[in-house]
């Protein structure tokens, strides 16, 4: 296993491109380094020297550095409550202390703690590509195979919304996470992925599968029901 220590986001992205099949980014490591994680048998591009670890107000936006941990997010008063609540979906403090916002999004896990809530919040990503910085809506990023390095996540600083998780236990993989902010609805469904749109009817556009988080019919029901719940 080789470890690369890029000093700039651009350097990191180039390393990733040059070693597309053999290397992964390493930030918090809770997913990459865990048993059977993405880093198994791979080289590591350690991005921990790249900064990107602040949460700050930039004009009317809240800017969240990709290397901020989930605990940073959960603790920060600048962050809207419903997004902080989603950070706590990672139920273990020790994991939250390591897991990063960028890592949680970049892996595109369909039980991502943050994908639904940030998508519903119409977050925008600042990312680095081999060709320079780019801005992308988070929903588009998560539904693509884009390998750009996430640097920051921006949302309206006064964004309000709602998020709800369904899972076996607090520590289990979520079966369904539903989020709404303004007129944007988003669902992360285990085994199915992320869907979002401007109607609560979005659940119908997913294909559901049986897996360890529950049967297809169960998840479909939850996805369809989530937005009708009392808040």
């Amino acid at each position, binding site marked *: 296993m080789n470890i690369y220590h890029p000093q700039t986001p651009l350097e990191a992205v180039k390393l990733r491109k040059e070693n597309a099949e053999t290397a992964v980014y390493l930030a918090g490591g809770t997913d990459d*380094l*865990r048993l059977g994680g993405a880093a198994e048998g791979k080289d590591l591009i350690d991005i921990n020297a790249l900064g990107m670890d602040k949460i700050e107000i930039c004009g009317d936006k809240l800017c969240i550095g990709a290397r901020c941990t989930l*605990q940073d997010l959960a603790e920060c008063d600048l962050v809207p409550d419903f997004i902080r609540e989603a950070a706590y979906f990672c139920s273990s403090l*020790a*994991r939250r202390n390591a897991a990063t916002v960028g890592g949680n999004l970049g892996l595109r896990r369909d039980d991502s703690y943050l994908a639904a809530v940030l998508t519903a919040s119409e977050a925008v990503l600042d990312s680095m590509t081999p060709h320079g910085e780019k801005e992308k809506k988070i929903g588009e990023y998560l539904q693509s195979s884009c390998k750009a390095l996430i640097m920051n996540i921006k949302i309206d600083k006064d964004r309000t919304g709602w998020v709800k998780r369904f899972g*076996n236990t607090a520590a289990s993989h979520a079966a369904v996470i539903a989020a709404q902010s303004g007129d944007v609805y988003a669902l992360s469904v285990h085994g199915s992925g992320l869907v979002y749109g401007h109607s609560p009817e979005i659940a119908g556009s997913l294909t559901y599968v049986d897996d*360890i988080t*529950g049967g297809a019919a169960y998840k*479909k029901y939850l996805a369809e029901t989530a937005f009708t719940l009392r808040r």
Partner: protein
Amino acid sequence: MEQWKCKINGETVFLTSKATDRLRDVLYRTGYRSVRDSDDAEGFAGSDTIIFNGKLRYSNLILLYQAENAEIRTAESLLHGRELNNVQKAMVAAGIVQSAYNAPAAALILTWLLEQHPNPTKEQIKDALSSIFIRDAGYEHYYLAVKLACELRDTGAFQSEIAPSFRPHLDIIGKPVGKIDGAALVSGEPVFVEDKVPENAWVLHVIRSPFASAYIKSIDTSEAEKLDGVAAVITAANCPDVYYMQAGQGNPEPSPHDRRLFNWKVRHVGDRVAGIVARTPEIAFKAASLIHVEYEPTDAVYTVEEAMAEGAPLVHNGPVRYNAGAPADLDEYNKKAGDPREGDVIYQFPLHADIRKNIAASNKGHIGDLEKGFAEADAIVDHTYQTSQIQHTPLEPHVCYAHVENGRLVINASTQVPYHVRRIVSWVCGIPENKIHIIKERVGGGYGSKQDILVEDLTGYAAWITGKPVYYRNTREEEFIANSTRHPMRARVKMGGKKDGTITAIFMEVCANTGPYGNHCLTVPMNSCSKTLPLFKVDNMGYDLKVFYTNTPPAGAYQGYGTPKGTYGIMMAMAELADKLGIDYKDMVMKNRVEEGYMLEILKGLGEGREGNVVPVGSCGLDEAIEKGCEMINWGHKEESDDPDWKIGKGFAMIMQGSGLPGLDHAEAIAKLETDGTVILNSGGADLGTGLDTISAKIVCEQLKVPMERVTVVSGDTDSCVFDTGAYASSGTFFSGNASLVAVKKLKEKILAEAALQMGEEAADLDVRAPGEVYSKKTGKSLTYGELSHTAISGTGRGQVVAHGSFVTAASSVPYGAHFAQVAVNVKTGEIKVQKFYALQDAGTPINPEIALCQMYGAVMKSIGHSLYENMILDKDGRCVNANLLDYGVPMITEAPEDFKSVLIDVDDKDGPYGAKSISEIACNGAAPAIGIAIHDACGVWLRSWPMNSEKLLKALGKI
């Protein structure tokens, strides 16, 4: 190898290892033994927790190079010299230091918490403990420990009541005074098997079957054996031709000998195929890749329904032999045996098996007239209750270190049954027991799984034939697929009752799934009937039990044996019957529950493979548990939620267990007065974290009037101790405790006799008193134990004062109790929350009340897990698809009930040591029915299978 500089516990340290090694492994190797691993770097269990640059982190998820210039704290930093810090002292006092594999990590977390928040809220404590999985003691007394630590810091003493005290006339029995091994455990001393493994130990790696059922056509190990650093490759081709089974039970066992170390037929995914003894794990893995196995897959069965089907594939189809009681038609029966690679099945005595129908064991019986009983009923319910396959998930996985020393095989084991380990290893290795020394180390969680000899058999054999020191440790995945689990079971309960609530008949038809081998195949399922039907004062009761072989991961003993499953069925059925008859469930319980003195005729057929003892109900706190619990939960009052989607319901279950196996269990101890007047008690009992050694020590203190620090208990060492069947079937306190009591009483007699000679007085005029002396009631003269002992061994004396105690009994001291649950159920989403849980139990005299309470919390948490969350999921090919802690779904602190209370009902038993009965196993029995009944009370549906989860609830409600 590179060096990495960091600061550990305030000291600059250079760690030498590869940059990409996991920090946990390096810390442990460097001597920070408190940093353990329970999840193979899953980032879940928290045994590897450290403080890394001021934050709680899992050290398994940090690579060594990331620790360069880091500030690290481990639990070793908590000690001041050898003195525990306030948190550690509070944890011991609170009773939460039990099996304690990750107790040092928990102490570190709580110390960190108090540094951040000197007076933390419940939510802050909960958040800090969200990182750690506690399986033994539950989480409830962790809140107490934090409170006690704050009190100690602020006032210099504990102020809060830790646990109630019992038996005011006794000095130390029934008082919460801490655990004799608490300090060693919470401080992270090297007390576990892994800590005893030298650096030069070789490793044992096991190649496991990818098929649920297959013959091994061929296995070529030649290339692997040529590899440098490989000492042996053991397979079916070269292992001893010895049939045995892995359950640690009394000999002859009520389980079939149906396996060898390796078999020519693999019977589950994860079954042993080959064992490699190699100098390093890397060499072992390389060797494994060079072994070529050709399998011949065969059809498999996974459920009892599949196993019992006409023409079902047979899990075992070899010749059957009996060591006693062979049926007359055995030769004819064996003509139907299949492929020679099936191997033999040897019964020690008949268990009513028929392996040609996949039946490993069966039993049936009844009292009264069932037909008449059901004919008299005004209503009958007849339902089937299904339980799932559950894993024990001890924090310390199964682990063993074996080496040869002075021509003897020495095994450091994490076991509940050291003497059974010795016997079975003796069989497998073909060496006599005097050539084997089993050292039971501290057990980092067992819960029944370490009643089985799952790793010591092969590790011991590997060390014996190679002469190498051999270390073996299960991966967490192997804990799931190659270990033992709770038998999945299907219990059909038919129950009839009259309008006045009188139950006229109960019939239980139980089908259990024992998996590929017959460990505990009779005894565990039998408990589903033998520890449930005797709760009922009903004239007509019957049971029909069949246990099936299948190709699932193996089943075995699990805390409670089959009782949690039988209790689930029978209590749910009674609630369903009460509902059908339109009467209050509690009224029905009170009308039909047993009382002291009631003769338990049903026990006659419910022995462990032999006729059971019919005895009357002895000391019984059942009524008090029920009445007090009903009062606590406000039974009969319907709670309403502000949110119409959330419905609230209540339920409870009466429960019972045993205190060991009368007529089968056997315990011994030796008490020695040392030359300075201190006492060493050698107990055959196996303390698996539950406080058995503390019980023995307290018995010494109580009898001889000496303080705890003048007593040492050595236990579970087959060289220095004497025989004990082991810690299972709730026998520890009752059997091993009674053996200690017998030994110490005899020691006291001998001390008085020796003192009489030395003092020139009559023994009848002498007695003992604190702090450890003999005094004359007649003359007032006194003689300290130290003086007495010194004289006894001074060259002209009569020798060291030593006594041996042995305990067997036909008496049955049954613990009783009642568990209550209040749940909230969301009828729209299916979410289920356990709002309140009250566990009330009659444990006789709780010798260690604070430890007893925590065992109840821990057992209830396990049971809540089984009831609502946990389930091993197999795919169509028999592979477990959730063989890790995260995917499997163990409950953590978030799942603990918000209002959670354990209550000890004060009952003095005539047969237990100082009136004690068992405490822990019984606490696994109540949650499932209590929660199931509460769910029905909340929303009107009966969930008749584990786990009773949201998906099943939504289905039952017709939503999906």
